[in-house]
């Protein structure tokens, strides 16, 4: 190295050559700086820090999101069609996940009130795969009773009032109120002798009930979920009950959103689903 580039060359370098040399060094600096910045964007993805609950149909290969992040063109068309505005786009802190859609279930879960999986239909790149047609086919995650001791039903308690308080802005579609427009959860108070909100508001359970009464959603029997997602299992004392997640759960997050205790007794794990109930990374959201 030292012989190849002496500090003070004996022969005088022409100014033109010197200028070219400096330009080359500057340019190399710019290139390295920008390459470094772009590699920084990979860190959140490699550390799994940007793992999030994704909209229905998000491509998952063994529950890893790499393909989903690759396929997403970051246009937000899924955001625009969602009737409950459940979908948000991630910020720069998600690195290569910037502009990719996700759902914060506790604040606004996907309640499938569009019926037709509008976000999937809107996706131009297949990042939300068109291979699913009905809510029951979604595999976003899997609900889990994280704090059984906090669960009102487990204590034999009922629930009266606004599920998440007067200031909660989340919305759900209540078909008996308005078939087409979701309303604020705060505008729909409950009076329940035994709290069963997570079962009562489960979009899969609602569909099963509709189908059983002979009125499938949109009059389409294909909309009928084949399996139950959650049910309330009575305990030995005959008073208390525990919500039990079944293999029809799609991980939409409505149970996590509606759960009146804080923090929610029931949450959605994003690293497993009904087809793959063993957690891949071990963690949960």
């Amino acid at each position, binding site marked *: 190295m030292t012989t190849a580039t002496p500090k003070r060359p004996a022969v005088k370098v022409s100014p033109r050559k010197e200028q070219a040399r400096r330009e080359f060094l500057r340019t190399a600096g710019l290139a390295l700086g920008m390459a470094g910045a772009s590699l920084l964007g990979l860190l959140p993805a490699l550390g799994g820090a940007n793992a999030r609950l994704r909209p229905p149909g998000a491509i998952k290969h063994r529950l890893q999101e790499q393909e989903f992040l690759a396929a997403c*063109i970051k246009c937000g068309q899924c955001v625009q069609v969602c009737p409950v505005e459940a979908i948000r786009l991630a910020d720069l802190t998600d690195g290569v996940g910037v502009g990719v859609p996700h759902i914060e279930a506790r604040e606004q879960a996907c309640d499938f009130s569009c019926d037709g999986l509008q976000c999937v239909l809107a996706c131009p790149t297949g990042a939300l795969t068109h291979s699913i047609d009905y809510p029951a086919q979604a595999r976003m995650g899997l609900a889990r009773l994280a704090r059984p001791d906090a669960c009102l039903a487990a204590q034999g308690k009922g629930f009266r009032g606004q599920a998440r308080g007067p200031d909660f802005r989340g919305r759900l579609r209540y078909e008996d109120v308005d078939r087409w427009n979701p309303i604020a959860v705060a505008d729909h108070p409950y009076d329940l002798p035994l709290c069963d909100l997570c079962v009562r508001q489960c979009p899969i359970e609602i569909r099963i009930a509709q189908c059983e009464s002979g009125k499938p959603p949109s009059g389409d029997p294909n909309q009928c979920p084949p399996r139950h997602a959650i049910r309330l299992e009575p305990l030995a004392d005959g008073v208390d009950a525990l919500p039990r997640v079944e293999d029809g759960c799609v991980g939409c997050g409505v149970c996590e959103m509606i759960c009146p205790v804080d923090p929610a007794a029931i949450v959605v794990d994003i690293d497993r689903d009904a087809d793959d109930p063993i957690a891949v990374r071990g963690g949960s959201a």
Partner: protein
Amino acid sequence: MSYFTDSLRQLIGAKPRKPTPDQIPVEVRAVYAEKRKERLTEAALRAVEHEHDKSPGRHKWRNRRWMTLILVNLLFVISYRLDIQLVEGALTGSRVLGFHMADLNSALQVMLAYKHVVLNLLIGTTTVFVLWWLLGGRTFCSWACPYHLIAEWAEALHLKLAARGWARDTQFHRGVRAVFYVVFALLAVLTGYTVFETLSPTGILSRALIYGPGLALLWVLALLAFEVLVSRRAWCRYICPIGITYGLVGSLATPIRVQYNVESCHHEGDCRKVCMVPHVLDVTIRGRAQAVDTDIGADCTRCGLCVDVCPTSSLAFKVKGLGGLV
């Protein structure tokens, strides 16, 4: 040299070629000889410029372009805010009245990273390909990209500061943009992530306008600060692969171009001073023209600043087979 190879050389950052005297055709040599006879004095040149500056259509193309750019980006915003489903999505991928459109560079990054192409993306890519091929050059850059407009205002600030010695224009080798193009393509293929999209101020700004601001705007601000203080229009000139993607499309014998006519040109260089990619205007230097009329290559963003500034109308928009563009 064909329009295509000339454009390609511009896009990869090669030095513009100086024609040897025998490469300059007789009629062009006659034009140059005629000009040598009556060279304009500096004062006469300034007088012509001054006269032109006062003319009513002085910023015609710039105003049309700014209005178009703002309208295009506003349509996305209005469409979402008012829920009228006119233009859904963002600049990276959208649906115009239900018809798929995909930004060519974003689509390319997705294809390289994901290694699958779904039909909708293919449709969107084809639509946009045809659109920008018709318009030619890097028309997307100056007529649609929101970063271009903001960078243009930052550039005005840069020039003011530079005039007082408070900022400088550090030059880099233009070829680095082609290097970045390959690097970003390789990164997408190798990592399986659309790495460039993390940095793209075009995507960040488009989404910020439509879905609301976020931290990502800090990156855009950092880029602008770099351009104002350190290097004029650095992102568009030296880094952005979107420019190369559209440049490649626009180099395929497009019908609309900016055309240079050597006959009335004073060679004073006003056009190169306002141009973001002044190497495309090297033909306007005395002794460089190889034809009376020369089409400006595809690295040109068709911004029209040179057409606006030219005091002798030696630069003009032309449609092949149709003559001048109003």
